[in-house]
């Protein structure tokens, strides 16, 4: 080849397009090739060379692969805007797909799949069918990906023509590259389908594990990611899988290493043998550290992932702790803030890692011996925490700490030291003297220190009830109750005083009660979020530390035409998305990522909910029902079944919160008390947000209560279901089990209202497969207003309305927890029986629940 490509960017005086046209039709092959290169050069810098379409396509019929590839490149770009002309190329495509040269066959299917023109798609099917069974693996692997392309354009076609089965057959192909692409294509199709298409059985598992060893590095990632969805049957199988995957940890490609780590972590959940788990952790640690020697970009990803992994398995990198000496060195620097941080960091190592604790303590002691004032103070603060983390382990160092008493001048350090003295008063011979030295300045101390002094003195007195401490306690209590304005201090002092004067033994139980062991939960993620993120190790989710649905928005690409973009609106409403019109956009950017899944709302104090203060019982007698007058609650446990106890209950929503409204009626002959409630795993993970507050029920009386509920506690896997299994027990009777139905309406949140534009965009961004509709022949709407009011009362918000012949079409939006929206379209003729309800949502599996709920609402 002569010269170089950049000359193709130069322009000529004559007018580029006519000149190119001429060259494209030249009789010389080289000239035509050069001309196509020029056309592509123009195309890549954004010039419109679509008018040359026919001329370029004419160059396609050549045996020269280089030229053919160039034409194909051009076609992919312009076929969209010239669909009619693209048909011209079809014959050549079909012919090429049968070419003796496998490269040309593959090129033809690959390119046809990229041209998203309906007419071409029809012609694609036959060549694709052939290529899926081609003798050449290069053609088969290209065809496998082409099925995914076709599915994206026309899912039905793929299913009708049996391409899914052909794809599944390729999993058993003898070429690992073909297997990898088939797995990738099936995984993508499954992702976009609500039906089970690609389920990994133990049979496919073993095939894939075998292919794993022979695959290219990228194929290994596809396979490992697909396998991570497989749930091993038992610990034994999990161990077998892990054994096959572990060699991948030695791979030079960090994507393979991280995908293998993900797979191993998932299987480890099932492995019960602690030896095996420990061994695996040992094997995973060095490769994880090695990732940190890669390019800085990879290091970033690795560190974000390691951050998650050590939260779940803190010991995994315990061997790799090499920072202690660094911290020690930093602790002797001049920058005071820096030093404090270094000392705190040592403390955190000690609290997080049991194995490192002893070394941390000895480093801290060395630092204390330097006697630099602020180092000592900071060290004492962290040692207090270490004592609380490992009780009865390191108390021998207290003597060393006490030597530094007089250097303490910061409140936090002083308070920490005083806490230590009080807590271990019985082991410190001169504890009373030490405390006394602090007491002299009691009135001048900051509140933090005063509070600790008060408590420590009480502890001392309870542990050594001798004369000295007794005098001290008098002084302190007097000081704290009479001479101070600080209500916290005063109240605490009064409580101690009363306790000590009425029942010293009770005081001992209270003040010297065993303290819970603390843990370091700084930077700690919510456990449920952590589990979700760990399941997504080696994906973006683990880098952002957000669940995937918080940032993944799907956009379906469908060929669009101008007419379709704005469906004709009638009656002045031009914004409704016609339910029947296809998803119409390829470039409209979907709304920004949905907000991260909301954590379950904190449960307010039960007493506050009831609007009562602590003196009243949360339970109100039957004369004053807690729930407002309304339809009676459905009876779930009839009296005959419950040996006289009748329970009625229903999930309701009030003030943005879900409650279980319950009524207990005691028709038995004995008083019932000690009521407790438990919910079985359910679709929404509903669980009691507090204890069940029911007083003793005398025979013939009843009590009602509102039990606050929390979500996502114990989510049952499997398809959504409305079943809620409840167990209630009391001290007198056996446990009662009954079933309730979860009304989806209770989950519709108050913030479900959508802007019209958002609604429109969301509708467009969701694929058609997410649309579900149902007819309710028995439902009659008598008035639009009344219907909308009723829907609004259940947090389904009106967006727009249009008329379609004699029918009204209503658009509404609603939202359930975790920010999942429902876009609703209701079609009905007023006063005539029959309602059509269509919904579109990212969670179409919820549709049956939704229809059940709306039918119940509109029928009543």
């Amino acid at each position, binding site marked *: *080849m002569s010269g*170089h*490509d*950049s000359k193709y960017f130069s322009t000529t005086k004559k007018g580029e397009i006519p000149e190119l046209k001429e060259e494209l039709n030249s009789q010389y092959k080289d000239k035509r090739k050069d001309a196509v*290169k020029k056309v*592509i*050069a123009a195309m*890549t810098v954004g010039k419109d060379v679509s008018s040359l379409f026919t001329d370029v396509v004419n160059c396609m019929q050549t045996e020269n*692969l*280089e030229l053919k*590839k160039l034409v194909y*490149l051009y076609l992919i770009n312009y076929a969209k805007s010239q669909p009619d002309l693209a048909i011209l190329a079809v014959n050549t495509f079909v012919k090429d797909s049968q070419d003796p040269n496998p*490269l040309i066959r593959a090129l033809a299917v*690959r390119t046809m*799949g990229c041209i998203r023109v309906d007419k071409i798609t029809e012609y694609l099917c036959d060549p694709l069918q052939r290529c899926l069974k081609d003798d050449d693996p290069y053609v088969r692997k290209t065809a496998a*990906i082409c099925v*995914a392309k076709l599915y*994206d354009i026309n899912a039905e076609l793929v299913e009708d023509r049996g391409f899914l089965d052909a794809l599944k057959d390729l999993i058993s192909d003898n070429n690992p590259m073909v297997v990898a*692409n088939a797995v*990738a*294509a099936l995984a*993508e199709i499954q992702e976009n389908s609500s039906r089970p298409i690609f389920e990994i059985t133990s049979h496919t598992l073993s095939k894939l594990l075998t292919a794993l060893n022979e695959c*290219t590095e*990228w194929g290994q*990632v*596809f396979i490992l990611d697909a396998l991570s969805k497989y749930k091993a049957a038992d610990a034994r199988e999990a161990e077998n899988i892990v054994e096959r995957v572990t060699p991948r*940890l030695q*791979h*030079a*490609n960090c*994507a393979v*290493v*991280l*995908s293998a780590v993900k797979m191993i972590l998932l299987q480890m959940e099932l492995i019960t043998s602690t030896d095996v788990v420990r061994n695996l952790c040992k094997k995973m640690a*060095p*490769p994880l*550290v*090695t990732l940190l*020697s890669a*390019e*800085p*970009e*990879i290091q970033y*990803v*690795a560190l974000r992932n390691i951050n998650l992994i050590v939260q779940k398995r803190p010991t995994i990198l315990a061997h790799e702790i090499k920072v202690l*000496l*660094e911290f020690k*060195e930093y602790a002797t620097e*001049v920058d005071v803030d820096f030093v404090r941080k270094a000392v705190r960091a040592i403390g955190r190592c000690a609290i997080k890692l049991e194995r490192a604790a002893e070394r941390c303590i000895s480093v801290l002691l060395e630092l204390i011996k330097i006697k630099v004032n602020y180092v000592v103070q900071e060290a004492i603060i962290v040692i207090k925490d270490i004592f609380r983390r490992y009780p009865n382990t390191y108390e021998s160092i207290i003597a060393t700490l006490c030597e530094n008493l007089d250097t303490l001048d910061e409140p936090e350090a002083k308070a920490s030291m005083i806490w230590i003295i009080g807590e271990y008063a019985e082991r410190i011979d001169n504890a009373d003297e030490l405390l006394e030295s602090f007491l002299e300045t009691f009135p001048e101390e900051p509140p933090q220190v005063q509070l600790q002094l008060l408590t420590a003195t009480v502890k001392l007195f309870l542990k050594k009830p001798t004369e000295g401490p007794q005098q001290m306690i008098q002084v302190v209590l007097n000081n704290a109750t009479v001479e101070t304005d600080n209500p916290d201090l005063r109240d605490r002092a009064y409580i101690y005083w009363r306790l000590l004067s009425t029942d010293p033994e009770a005081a001992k139980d209270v003040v010297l009660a065993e303290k819970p062991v603390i843990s370091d939960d700084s930077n700690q993620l919510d456990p449920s979020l952590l589990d979700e993120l760990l399941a*997504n190790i080696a994906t*973006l989710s683990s*880098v*952002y530390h957000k669940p*995937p649905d918080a*940032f*993944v928005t799907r*956009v379906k*690409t469908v060929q669009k035409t101008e007419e379709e973009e704005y469906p004709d609106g009638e009656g002045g409403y031009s914004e409704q998305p016609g339910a029947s019109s296809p998803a119409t956009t390829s470039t409209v*950017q979907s*709304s920004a990522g949905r907000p991260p899944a909301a954590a379950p709302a904190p449960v307010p104090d039960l007493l506050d909910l009831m609007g009562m203060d602590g003196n009243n019982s949360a339970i109100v007698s039957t004369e004053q029902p807690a729930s407002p007058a309304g339809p009676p609650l459905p009876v779930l446990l009839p009296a005959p079944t419950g040996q006289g106890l009748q329970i009625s209950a229903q999930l309701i929503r009030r003030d943005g919160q879900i409650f279980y409204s319950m009524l207990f009626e005691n028709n038995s002959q004995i008083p019932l008390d000690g009521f407790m409630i438990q919910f079985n795993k359910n679709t929404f993970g509903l669980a009691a947000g507090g204890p069940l507050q029911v007083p003793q029920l005398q025979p013939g009386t009843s009590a009602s209560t509102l039990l606050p509920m929390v979500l996502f506690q114990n989510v049952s896997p499997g398809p959504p279901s409305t079943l809620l299994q409840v167990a209630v027990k009391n001290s007198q009777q056996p446990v009662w089990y009954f079933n309730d139905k979860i009304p989806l309406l209770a989950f519709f949140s108050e913030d479900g209202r959508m802007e019209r534009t958002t609604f429109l965009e969301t509708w467009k961004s969701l694929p058609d497969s997410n649309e579900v509709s149902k007819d309710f022949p028995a439902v009659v709407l008598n008035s639009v207003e009344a219907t909308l009011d009723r829907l609004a009362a259940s947090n389904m918000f009106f967006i727009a309305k249009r008329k379609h012949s004699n029918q009204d079409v209503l658009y509404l939006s609603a939202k359930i927890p975790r920010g999942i929206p429902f876009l609703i379209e209701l079609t009905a003729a007023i006063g005539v029986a029959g309602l059509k309800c269509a919904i579109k949502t990212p969670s179409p599996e919820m549709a049956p629940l939704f229809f059940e709920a709306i039918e119940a609402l509109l029928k009543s």
Partner: protein
Amino acid sequence: MISQFFVLSQRGDNIVFRDYRGDVQKGSAEIFFRKVKFWKEDGKEEAPPVFNLDGVNYFHVKVVGLLFVATARINLSPSLALELLQRIARVIKDYLGVLSEESLRKNFVLVYELLDEVIDFGYIQTTSTEVLKSYIFNEPIVVDAACMPPIGPAALFMQGNKRMPGTAVTKSVVANEPGGRKREEIFVDIIEKISVTFSSSGYVLTSEIDGTIQMKSYLTGNPEIRLALNDDLYIGRSGISNFGYSGSSGTGPVILDDCNFHESVHMDSFDVDRTLSLVPPDGEFPVMNYRITQEFKPPFSINTLIEEAGTLKAEVILKIRAEFPSSITANTILVEMPLPACTTRVNFDLERGIVGQNADFKESHKKLEWSVKKIVGGSEHTLRAKLNFSQEFHGNITKEAGPVSMTFTIPMYNPSRLQVKYLQIAKKTKTSNPYRWVRYVTQANSYVARI
């Protein structure tokens, strides 16, 4: 799967742009560049290599000043995307010889051809230069390498060592040499980046070696290669006690904490005789990466002395000793040391008779910089610097100055003592005996001495 791939110049110009799935808007390159350029208003923080903007995930790496970017909508594996971007850069470099804005523009047709074979519908097909050769028909137009910054670890060898054939790093794997024949040769580079921290008393506090055995083959016919490493090479620190830990004496086993291998490497006989066998694919690739925390002898010892001369003056004496054999020469040595904030002026006293030596006080950073072009093994060099303070200095100067850090490159030396004992090419062509180059180089990653 990947939605788009593009390469941007430093100024944000679109050099290459390929859309694979059509689910991300066309303007993404511009959106990306604007976001990265103005990541934080104060310009202090750089954009992370992975971020999400309006539902689109952007992945990027920087290679020789160019931004290689991929976009995706799904919850993709970020390490997959980032590794891919590095590999694409390497493949393009293998083909073009030189990776630069100019070479990309001149070879855009070839680059697009490559991109279509590397990725199909967002799925990575292959990044092996060897495999790609069967499917690529365009030939590269080689640009002049003279002023191009080379990439890859082997670029280290470009630094002023005449024994190395400089063409090795800028030679295309497919283009023919002038004269039509390709030279049969293979390069094996052992590259070690070392991190050492010395305490103020000169003891080694931490030390680590990040090593890689890099290979670049220009052999025709893809013969099998056998690479023999040290007999006493062990993997995993757990076995240390069994082998009589040797410390820094310079003998005894070489113990790798961890290592990984390129997929072409067969380990069949590794356990028996520490031999790796492989059929090297074309192009540059790492045969093996390894990490060592076993003690080793640091190539330089650093000795710092600070003498106070009254309250307004002090003298710093820096002594560097090259602890490697005199047959070896280190080059591009730079010693840096932060000085107290009140330092206003520094007078240097350089040793005489050393060429290419320079010392400077960077006032804006309050930092001393001492550069030496070459240091021969076994030699010792001293710098005396007289500091003048703007105000009376009380307290400890060592607390406000230091630590001393060094960067350097030492060709034909590696502190781990990992060695290629022999490099055997299984099937030699009858006519020519291929050139075999085995090269070693050590570079300072973080080399710090506290004072």
